[in-house]
C-alpha cells in the first residue's frame, strides 16, 4: 500500500495491487493489438469498459487461470476414472442355482480328507461343516453310549410334529455306523452354534441346569432325555429346543416343531473317507410366511442367495463350549 505521510496519521492512497492493475490496463489500452476503442466506449459506455477489462486484463492472469482450470479438469478426469470401475455395479452377478445335492468330500482345514475311524466319540467340541450351500453349518458327530463306546445308529422314521408327516432317516455311517450329521441351524428360530450344540453324556446331568450360556440345559430337556433313554442330546440354548441325535434329530422338547434336517453321509470303507451326498427331512429354512416347511430339503437349493459348497467341504472344530 502506498501511504501518504501527514503530521499524525498515515493516509492510504493506493493499494499496490490496484496500482499494478492500472498499469496493466493502461498498457493493454495502448497496445495496438488490443487497442481500446474509444468510439465503442462512447457508444456502449460502461459495459464496453467492463467487458474490455475482463477480456484483456481480468482479475487473474489468464495463463494462471488456464493452468488452474486444466488442473481442475485433471482432478475431474481422475474422478471419472475412479467412477468407471464403480459402474461394475450395473453388471448383475451370476447366481449359480443347483438342482441337486453335490457330493462333497469332508476334508480338514489343510485339505486332507477326514478319516472316519479317527473321529473322536462323544466329542464336546462343536465340529461343523458347510453343506449343501456355503453358510449352512452342519454338525458332524460320532455318537457313543455313556461309557464312550461308539453306538450303531439304526435307520429310523422321524415325525415332523408341525405337519404330522414322516420321513426316513438312513442311520449312522462309518466303521461302527455311529457317525451322523445334522443341520446346525435350530429349526425354531434359526440359532447357530455355539447356542445350539451337542451335549455328550457327561454333560447331560443336573449340574448343567445352573451352568452359564451356552451350555445350559433345561429341566424339560433332562427329563425328555431320561424318558427317551438317550445318553446325549442336541440342545439349543436360545429358547431350549432339544433334539435326539440317536433318532434322526427328532424333536425331544419344544419350542421347535420340526426335527433337525439330517445330512446323508457316505462312507468309503476302502479309504475311510466320508462324503456328504444329500439331505433328508425338511428344508433348512422354512418356506413361506406361515413358517410351514416343505418336506423336500431340495427346496433349500433353490435359494438364489448362496452358492453350493462344491466337491469338498471343510470340517472345522470351532470350540469346546463347556467351561468345565
Amino acid at each position, binding site marked *: 500500500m502506498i501511504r501518504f505521510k501527514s503530521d499524525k496519521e498515515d493516509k492510504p492512497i493506493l*493499494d499496490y*495491487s490496484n496500482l499494478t492493475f492500472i498499469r496493466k490496463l493502461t498498457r493493454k489500452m495502448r497496445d495496438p493489438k488490443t487497442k481500446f476503442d474509444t468510439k465503442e466506449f462512447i457508444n456502449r459506455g460502461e459495459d464496453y469498459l467492463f467487458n474490455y477489462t475482463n477480456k484483456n486484463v481480468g*482479475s*487473474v492472469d489468464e495463463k*494462471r*487461470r*488456464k*493452468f*488452474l*482450470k486444466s*488442473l*481442475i*479438469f*485433471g*482432478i*475431474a*478426469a*481422475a*474422478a471419472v*476414472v*475412479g*467412477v468407471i*470401475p*464403480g459402474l*461394475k*455395479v*450395473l*453388471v*448383475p*452377478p451370476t*447366481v449359480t442355482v443347483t438342482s441337486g445335492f453335490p457330493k462333497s468330500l469332508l476334508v480338514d482345514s489343510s485339505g486332507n480328507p477326514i478319516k472316519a475311524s479317527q473321529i473322536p466319540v462323544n466329542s464336546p467340541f462343536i465340529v461343523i461343516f458347510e453343506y449343501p450351500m456355503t453358510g449352512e453349518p452342519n454338525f458332524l458327530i460320532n455318537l457313543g453310549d455313556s461309557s464312550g463306546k461308539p453306538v450303531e445308529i439304526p435307520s429310523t422314521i422321524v415325525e415332523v410334529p408341525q405337519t404330522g408327516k414322516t420321513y426316513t432317516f438312513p442311520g449312522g455311517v462309518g466303521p461302527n455306523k455311529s457317525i451322523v450329521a445334522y443341520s446346525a441351524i*435350530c429349526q425354531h*428360530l*434359526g*440359532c*447357530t452354534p455355539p*447356542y*445350539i450344540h451337542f451335549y455328550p453324556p457327561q454333560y447331560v446331568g443336573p449340574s448343567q441346569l445352573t451352568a452359564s450360556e451356552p451350555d445350559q440345559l433345561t429341566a424339560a430337556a433332562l427329563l425328555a432325555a431320561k424318558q427317551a433313554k438317550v445318553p446325549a442330546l442336541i440342545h439349543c440354548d*436360545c*429358547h431350549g429346543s432339544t433334539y435326539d441325535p440317536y433318532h434322526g434329530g427328532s424333536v425331544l422338547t419344544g419350542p421347535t416343531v420340526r426335527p433337525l434336517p439330517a445330512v446323508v453321509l457316505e462312507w468309503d470303507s476302502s479309504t475311510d473317507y466320508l462324503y456328504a451326498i444329500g439331505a433328508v427331512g425338511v428344508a433348512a429354512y422354512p418356506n413361506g*410366511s406361515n413358517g410351514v416347511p416343505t418336506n423336500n430339503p431340495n427346496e433349500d437349493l433353490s*435359494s*438364489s*442367495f448362496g452358492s453350493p459348497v462344491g466337491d469338498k467341504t471343510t470340517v472345522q472344530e470351532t470350540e469346546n463350549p463347556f467351561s468345565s
Partner: protein
Amino acid sequence: MSSKLSDWFKERLGLDDLPFFKTPDYMYKVDYWLGALVASAFIYTVITGLILLLYYNAQAGYNSTEFVINSVPYGSVVLYSHLYGAYAMIILAYVHMFRNYFAGAYKKPRELLWIIGVIMLVLTLGTAFLGYSLIGDALATSAVDVGEGIISSIPGLSIFIPLLFGNYDAGDYGRVLAWHIIFTALIGLLFVFHFFMAEHYGMMPSRKVKDKVPAVYTKEEWQKFNPWWPRNFVYMMSLVFLSWGFILIIPNALAYLNGLPQQLNPFLNPKPAPPPNSPAAAHITTYPPWFFLFLYKIADFTSDVLIFLFIGVIIPLIYLILVPFLDRTEYLHPLKRKVFVGIGILMATYLIQTTIWGDLTPGVEIPVGQQVLVYLPPAIIVALGLTAIKPRTDNKGNIKGTISPITVLAFVLASSLFVIAGIELLANPTILTVGIFIPLAGIFVLTTKKIAPIALKAEQKSENMAISEERVPEWKKKLAEGLVAVLFIYAVVLAAQIWTIPATGYFSNLFGVDLGLIFLMLGEGISLYHYVVYRK
C-alpha cells in the same frame, strides 16, 4: 478453448437469461448455501437409490439386501452410501431449517418457501423411515411394529396400516418400496418449487444490509451482483463434490468398525442387523433409526398415544408451519424476536437431548419427575439468558450484534449436559460418571466464561457496516494454487489405485473410501479455484 466451450454452452442454454438470483460477493459462504448441500445429498441418494432398485426384490427384502451387500459388485458401497446420503440429507435439512429459523428467513415474503420446506422435512423423515423398513432386518421389523402400534392405537387410523405397509409381516415389501419411491418423487416435486421460489426471492441478504422485512434485494440491486454463470455454478460444484465425498467416505470407513457398543450402533453402523427370525435377533435391543430416537423416547413418557403424538409430532409441526404468521414483527435480528428464538433454541436442544436420551435408555419408561428434571434446566437457562441479553442499538438505530444464536445454542447444550452429568454423578457415582462429568464441567466453565462478559455487560464488538470482502493477499492465492497441484497429484494416484480394489468382499468398501477421497479433492480443488479466480 475452454472459455469458448463455456461460451457455447452459455449461449445455447441461455445461462445469462436464467431467472436465477445474482449473488453478491459476501454470500459465497457455506451458511448461505445450506440448501444446496441438502439438495446435493438428495440427488446423491436418488442416484444410488435408482441403482439399488435394479437389485432390490420386494418379495425378499432381507435376502436381497444381503445379496446387494455380498454379491453385487460394489453393492455394499452403493447401499451404505445410500443410507448415509439419507442421513446427511436429514442432518443438513435440520441445519438448513434451524439456520433459516434463527435468521428469520421464514418472514415475509418467504412464508410459503418456509412452509414447503417444513413439508419436505416431514416427507424426508417419512421416506427415511420407509427406506429403513425395506431392509427387513430385526430392527426394521421392530421399528415397523412400533410404528404400526402407534398408528393403530388411534381410533380410525388403523385403516392406513395395510395402505402403507401392505403384507409387510408376510415378507412382502412391495408397498413399502412403492411408497418410498412415491415420497421421494414428492420431495423432488416440492424441491423444484422450493428451489425456484428461493431463486425468485434470492438468498436472504445479510442482516447488516437489510435488517427488516421484506428482506429481499430489489431487481435493480441484484443486477449488479455476480451472474449465476459461471461463478455460482463453480461454487455449487465444489459444495456438491465435497458433500458427496463425505457421504461416500464415512459409511465405507465405518463398515470396517466391528463390535460397536450398543449406544453407538444406531448412529454409526451402516450394516443391517440380523433378520428377525434369526437367533441373533433375540439378543438385540430394539431401537429405531437414530432420526426417530427422539420420538421413541417421547413414546416412553406417556401411555396415551394421542398425548405422545401431540407432544412429539403435531405441536412442533403445527408450530413450525404457523411460525411465519405468529412472528409478525418486522425485525430480523434474533434479539428482537426473543420468544421465537428461545423456542427455536429449545426445540433444537430438546431434539438433541431426547435423541441422546432415547439412545441411552431405549424403551425404558421415564417417570414425570425425571422428565421435568431433564427438560426444565434448558428452558430456565434459555429464558434467563434471553432476558439478560439486551439488544443494543447504535446511534443510527441499527441493532448491534451482541451474541450469535449458535453461541447461545452451544451454551444451552453445554449447560444442560453439565446439569445432566451432575445429576447422574450424584445418583450414580462411578468412575464413568466422574469421567463424563469433569470434561463437561470444563466445557461449561469455558462457555460460561465466553458468554458471561457479553451477557453481563452486553459488551459490543464494533462491527463493520460495510460487507465488502477483504482483499486476499497474493501469497495466499499462490498457496491455493500450489494446493490444487498437490490435490491433482493425489487424485491421479488414487484414481490409478482404485482400479485394483476387488468388486466384492471385505476390501470392496475401500472403493467407496477412495472414490470419496477423489470427490473431496475435486470439491476442494474447485473451491480453491473459486478462491483464486473470483475472490478479490
